[in-house]
């Protein structure tokens, strides 16, 4: 009787240990099969005249000068930018590994470093670069996807603060099947 109990006990402990270990080494979500590595964000400055943090826009004393047309046609930006009417942008890159047998997809992302975040891809044709928003970034089963310069990237729109090399940015990534994961990205010049 004693032997049987100890065997069950051992089995139970092993199960708990395995479950515990599998939660480590991947970014956050319990039981997640996803691992995010090498996350970095390109250094960039806020739009000229932006107030840092949650952005109350002030009409700053920035002289427009020049003979260029001060962005008259700039359309439905909401409160994204400042008096230069255009938001400051940056890009986040990383590798997302999926060790599960089921494909997953990055559906959206959030950060306090930007007012809006979109998923983008790029294509090059005869040296012409075209960037376009995508609804999701697929991560194949037992595979990975690399977000890198000239390809997939997470676009940060309307920076709420300057991003300088050495800073850190927290990014929350929302996946189709594996919940949300928060990663710390390094700000780098390249």
């Amino acid at each position, binding site marked *: 009787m004693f032997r049987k109990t100890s065997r069950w006990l051992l089995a139970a402990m092993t199960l708990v240990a395995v479950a515990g270990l599998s939660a480590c080494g991947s970014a956050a979500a319990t039981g997640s099969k996803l691992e995010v590595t090498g996350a970095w964000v*390109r250094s*960039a*400055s806020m739009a*000229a005249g932006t107030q840092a943090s949650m952005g109350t826009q002030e009409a700053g004393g920035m*002289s*427009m*000068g*020049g*003979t*260029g*047309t*001060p*962005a*008259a*046609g*700039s*359309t*439905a*930006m*909401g409160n*994204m930018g400042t008096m*230069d*009417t*255009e*938001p400051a*942008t*940056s*890009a986040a890159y990383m590798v997302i590994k999926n060790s599960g047998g089921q494909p997953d997809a990055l559906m959206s992302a959030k950060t306090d470093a930007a*007012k*809006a975040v*979109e998923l*983008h891809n*790029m294509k*090059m044709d005869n*040296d*012409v*670069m*075209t*960037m*376009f*928003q995508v609804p999701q970034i697929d991560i194949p089963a037992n595979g990975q996807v690399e977000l890198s*310069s*000239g390809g997939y*990237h997470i*676009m*940060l*729109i*309307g920076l709420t603060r300057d991003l300088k090399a050495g800073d850190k940015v927290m990014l929350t990534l929302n996946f189709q099947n594996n919940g949300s994961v928060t990663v710390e990205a390094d700000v780098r*010049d*390249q």
Partner: protein
Amino acid sequence: MSRIKVVFSVAGFVLFALFAFAGYTLTQNWISLGFGSFHGDALDVSKPPVDFTLTSAGGKEVNLRDFRGKAVYLYFGYRLCPDICPMTLTQLKDMMAVIGPKADLVQVVMVSVDPERDTPDLIDEFVKRFDKRFIGLSGTPDEIASVAKEFGIFYQKQPGSANTGYLISHSASVLAIDPNGHLRVLYHPQTEGVTMAADIDLLLRP
């Protein structure tokens, strides 16, 4: 040793020394002797020198020919661009660092393909975040269109989101112009700074 042997030995040694010296001189002066090739697409130097007039910060009129005597690296992009434009400007900044004192003989110029949103002040402020020596230029939509056409640069508005407004597809090559105003090299997008730096002697060669 016989006399003949001595003569031949000396002659052999002298010949060897001559070849060694010639080889050394050749390698040291490879580029000024006209050898070496660019790490990009070489362009036709027999075409006439290029020029244009656009506007820089403060409404100042700038002619490309103002930079004769220097090598000019010309890039067309826009401020909203989060990836390829900052990447290219960073590579150009790296190039300046690699060539060291020769950077005094170089001018990096960025022309905006988004004249409606990028005023001369704004595009100049943008490029100076990468290197204070860089110059940003803009102009009226017609002026930009005419300059882009002259350099074979394609650009086109693309629909964007409510967050970004329109996006712009554009040729992302870097064009290198020599101190006499001749277009010499086209560097394909994502060419590294060290690669462009390797061509500086060839580009500056009179």
